[in-house]
């Protein structure tokens, strides 16, 4: 899953991006509203974490303009202003969730996960694929009650396949949603991760559709 974090406080931006990457997300960053809007319009992010008080375009303006063109990108507003009118304003402009600074990182992660589930129409965090159980809340996979260890990147890839089970997933889609702007899409990272997933979960779980991409059978 690929996220965009828009925040003008450099230390905060750095920390949030690093921690979200640790969680297995591909994370793009923007330190002002204008860049944030450009990136959000260019790429289909799975969630945008948007600060409200920023120089140039502020969070409200970014959200308003984003909603004119894209109504389906989940947006989590992050702000130091927590008066009720501010929250109402954020939700009415089209924010999907609202978090007040300072907040626990764990809460931020939980809300991001919840936003992604909702946007994929998968409100239930427990998804069964054959004998495999994927817990999107705990970000864990188990078979017959036995936990299978996955790296965050491997898990992210599995989750992406799980949300689109039965569909053909192209390599471009995988690159768009699993790698951030700094990682080269020319690398063979994708094949490496698919190969590892097959090794850990069973070789017939993810099928290759020649010339089209991959598919996870429901």
């Amino acid at each position: 899953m690929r996220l965009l974090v828009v925040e003008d406080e450099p230390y905060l931006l750095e920390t949030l991006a690093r921690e979200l990457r640790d969680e297995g997300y591909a994370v793009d960053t923007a330190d002002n509203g204008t860049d944030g809007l450009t990136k959000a319009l260019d790429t289909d992010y799975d969630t945008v974490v948007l600060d409200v008080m920023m120089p140039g375009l502020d969070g409200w303006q970014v959200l308003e303009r984003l909603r004119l063109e894209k109504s389906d990108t989940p947006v989590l507003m992050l702000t130091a202003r927590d008066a009720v009118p501010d929250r109402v304003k954020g939700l009415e402009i089209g924010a999907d969730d609202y978090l007040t600074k300072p907040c626990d990182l764990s809460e931020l992660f939980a809300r991001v996960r919840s936003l992604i589930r909702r946007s994929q129409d998968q409100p239930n965090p427990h998804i069964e694929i054959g004998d495999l159980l994927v817990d999107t809340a705990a970000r864990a996979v188990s078979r017959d009650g036995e936990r299978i260890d996955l790296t965050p990147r491997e898990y992210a890839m599995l989750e992406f396949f799980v949300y689109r089970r039965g569909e053909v997933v192209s390599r471009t889609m995988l690159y768009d949603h699993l790698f951030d702007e700094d990682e080269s899409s020319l690398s063979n990272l994708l094949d490496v991760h698919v190969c590892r997933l097959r090794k850990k979960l069973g070789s017939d779980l993810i099928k290759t559709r020649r010339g089209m991409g991959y598919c996870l059978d429901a």
Partner: protein
Amino acid sequence: MIPGHRSIRWQILGSQVLLLIGVILGFGTLAFVLVRANQYARIDAELERRLGVVAFGVAPKRTASGFEVTFELRPEEGSLFGPETTHDYHYRVWLLPDDTEFLSDNAPSELEKPELSELSTASRIYQYGKRREAAKVLIRTGADSPRALLIVGCDVSSIASELARFRWLFSAGGLAILVLGTGTSWWISGRAIKPISTIGETARNIAEGEVSERIDVGHVENELGELAGVLNESFDRLQDAQARQAQFTADASHELRTPAFVILSQAQSALRKDRSTEEYRRAFEICEKAAKHIGDLVEGLLTLARRDSGEDTIHHEPCDLAAITEDAQMLLMTPAEKKGVTLETNLKPATVQGDKQALRQLVINLTNNAIQYTPEGGSIEVAVESHGEWVHLSVTDDGPGIAEADLPHIFDRFYRADKTRTAGSGNVGLGLSICQMIVDTHGGEIRAENRADGETGAIFRVELPAG
């Protein structure tokens, strides 16, 4: 409503009712006394007239033994007496010296004969219970010895009952007037007091939090209307101050939240799993900067809050602004060098009346601000000069200057021209507000402008009264 004697309305009402009772009683008693006197005077005049009639009845009469004084009334005179007359007039006559008694039929038997010595030729009035009598002595013509004792009387009970009726009528009328007067007074005092209750009610609502409520002064054009107007103005000012205070508090908490979030996220991030020494070092560095930022912010807020509340008083004493500036520059050399900015001074002794600490902070804040906005390689000039009654302090930089849109807000609290909220920048957005406050408390003026000498850059000018 305030009960009893403390209520203005009750006081007005009480005094008016007392006054009314006094007036009614006074006039009523006077009228009663006059009416009674008048009634008795009329009766007394009637008795007087009848005394005269009775006196004519005393006359000498020829008898067998010569002339003899006797008493006899002619029939038309006799009709003036008797039970059929209006007031049941009677007479009693004694011929002297024999004391021959002549009584009218209706003369009450229980009445005493008055002593001759008490009487004279002028009539005298007696009142026995419900009967009233006039008595006089008739003198023999040409002699001093009394000839007869004459008394006429009547029943005055009808007058008494008439007076009693009058008294009752008067009491009823007085009571009616009293009730009417009290009612009117209650109504008038209520109308006069009403604006006061309106004012009180509004003030109470405002105290309970309805801060936007105002007294309706639409139709009240007296002193109370004026008072309400004055109060409304005060309420406006209070609401304004409260709104500014609320905005300031909201801004302050907002400003504190971001660095707090930086510290929290750094700490949580560092604790989530084992990190390298380098990563821990970085996390601590960032926490340190954010904590310093919070510290600066809190200090600035406290400075403003203390001055706002008047807790921190300025000690005015003569001091040399040039010396203070020179002293402050020592502190500023290091940050200027770090930034690669040259700091120049042009100081001429100038005495002002002021607080050394506050003035030092003024110079430091202005210079720090200039260092902040001057790029590497730039220069800043701090000048102090005396101009008659004013001392001028100016801080000139050759940075990019101030955008027109920022100029009107540059002294606002938390206003930052560059708008970046970096925890490590050392810029908390309060420095210039504190400068403005210091200058205000010294009775001076501060303004910011862009250089007009062809160079880019900003000038902050301060004018303080010379000491």
